[in-house]
């Protein structure tokens, strides 16, 4: 909650703020909740002045109202999706990674998340003006691999150089650093031209650091991060892709004991990051490795994955597509 400072109004001098703090009025919200007459008495400012301060606060912190027609006219020029270059996945996503929202990419270890992330990075910067920010929390980013993927697409040296330049990478090791970065992106002290998408690989690496902590500060950090994320998505017209992981747990099926039959185990997958995170992404891409008998059009070292898209803000059922992951990339 924003604290009351002298930046909120010229009349809020140090001594006025001190008096208010003494009376347990420290935040802008607490100031508004107080009776105007009482405030006037406390601060020795007249009623008009108090009302002026109130108005200032409302103007400064209150969110503007927009009506449906205005939104309609604005949306005509807005980009809705980021084309991710994989046709089948674009279709299942309804056009691509949505601009203005948080998307999640989730799967078990070894399901191909990082490789898909790399392919998305390459596809999004190639042949567009887009810049991508890759937030690396576990040292997975490999420029040589990115260059190889570009090479496999048949890019010329010039194209490769141009693409590589538009891929920005920053290493972030804690939630505090992530929040600091997003704060700077919001207030533009860190500025990236033509930024179209931010990829965070991976969010659990940061959030798991707060496991076992009693004071729930991890959740506070996550909420603050989500707030900044949503602001950037909506106001800077970008999409944020968060990589999440799945873990497995085994449920023992308690069935009636049948002669000679062993316990049956049911393997379940759990989407990590907790209950608060569950509904935050607008789109979730679940990636699952497939064991097909006859892999189609894939190199010896490759495999197929099933990408299932679950959208929380539309009246639509899950849809999925099959992708190929191998040394050439993901397609």
């Amino acid at each position, binding site marked *: 909650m924003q604290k009351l400072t002298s930046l909120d109004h010229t009349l809020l001098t140090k001594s006025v703020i001190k008096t208010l703090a003494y009376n347990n009025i420290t935040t802008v919200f607490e100031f508004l909740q107080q009776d105007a007459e009482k405030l006037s008495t406390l601060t020795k400012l007249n009623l008009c002045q108090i009302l002026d301060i109130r108005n200032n606060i409302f103007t400064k912190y209150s969110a503007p109202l927009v009506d449906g027609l205005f939104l309609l006219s604005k949306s005509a020029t807005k980009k809705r999706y980021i084309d991710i270059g994989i046709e089948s996945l674009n279709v299942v996503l309804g056009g691509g990674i949505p601009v203005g929202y948080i998307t999640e990419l989730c799967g*078990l*270890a*070894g399901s191909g998340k*990082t490789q898909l992330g790399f392919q998305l990075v390459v596809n999004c910067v190639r042949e567009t003006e887009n810049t991508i*920010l890759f937030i690396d*929390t*576990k*040292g*997975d*980013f*490999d*420029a*040589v*691999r*990115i*260059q190889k993927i570009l090479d496999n697409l048949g890019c010329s040296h010039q194209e490769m*150089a141009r*693409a*590589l*330049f*538009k*891929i*920005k*990478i*920053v*290493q972030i*090791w*804690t939630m*505090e*650093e992530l929040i*600091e*970065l997003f704060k*700077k992106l919001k207030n533009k002290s*860190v500025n*990236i031209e033509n930024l179209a998408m931010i990829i965070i690989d*991976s969010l*659990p*690496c*940061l959030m*798991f*650091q*707060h*496991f*076992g*902590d009693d004071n729930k500060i991890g959740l506070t950090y996550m909420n603050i991060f989500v707030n900044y994320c949503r602001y950037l998505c909506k106001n800077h017209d970008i999409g944020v892709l968060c990589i999440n*992981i*799945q*873990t*497995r747990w*085994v449920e*023992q099926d308690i069935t009636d004991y049948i002669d000679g039959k062993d316990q049956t*185990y*049911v*393997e379940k997958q759990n989407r*990590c990051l907790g209950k608060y995170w569950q509904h935050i992404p607008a789109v979730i891409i679940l990636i699952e490795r497939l064991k097909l008998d006859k892999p189609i059009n894939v190199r010896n*070292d*490759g*495999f197929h994955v099933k990408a299932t898209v679950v959208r929380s803000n539309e009246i639509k059922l899950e849809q999925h597509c099959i992708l190929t992951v*191998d*040394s050439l990339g993901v397609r």
Partner: protein
Amino acid sequence: MSPEFKIFNATELWQKETSLPSIPTFSQKLDYILGSDGIPLGSLTELLGLPGTGKTQMCLQLCAAVQIPKALGGLNAEALFIDTNTNFVLDRFKEILSACLLKCQKLLNLPINANNEEALKKLHYVNAFGLEKFCALMHQLPKLIEENNIRLIVIDSIAFPFKEGISAKQRTGLLFRQMAELQRLAVEKQIAVVLTNEMSTRLGLSSGTVVGSLGDAWAHRCNIRLLLSAPDDPCGDRLALLLKSNIAPEAVAPFKITKEGIRDVN
């Protein structure tokens, strides 16, 4: 927490990545499947396997390999061996180190120098038995690294300190915090980190009952995971299976362990 964020572009990182060598395992086939001709700097590489599959041997080999002179494309650097479960045997390391130095000297046409005292000093050994000691050591790592040209950190094993006295959730929290700081250091100073992990059993998983310990969340953490196995048939090859890598596809490489260390199968 630095006030300034260093934002690189991929070109700069590409130049950084291609300017430094990896640490060879002395098995060319294994180096090949790793995709970067050895264990890469700045990454966390995990060695998994049942007891006796060669994890510690591999670590000792890498501790010797980090000393390879620049003239042969090596790092000419030092290693830090963090021992948490007394698997380290000094005599064995001396054997592997001697063989490595001998090979280098032969390749460079240098006179054979049997004195390995200087070389031995380039392995910094620390024992960290027990969770408390381990945590204290991890905390002091930046200082330890600063004073020496260390390019390889080995933790053998990462699972052992966490076996008891800590709940699963706390273990995850602590581990992930430690790995964040460790990798921050590794990336900044371009150090290779190798961790050995043990196996445990989990009934009912479709991928098999024997898995790496420390849980599923941990399985995501390291950049590279190598599963080492010893053959049932004593005449068979040992195998290194690349389970996970950010730069190379899944593959298998055979290797053997000789008196001299890790070597290729003929």
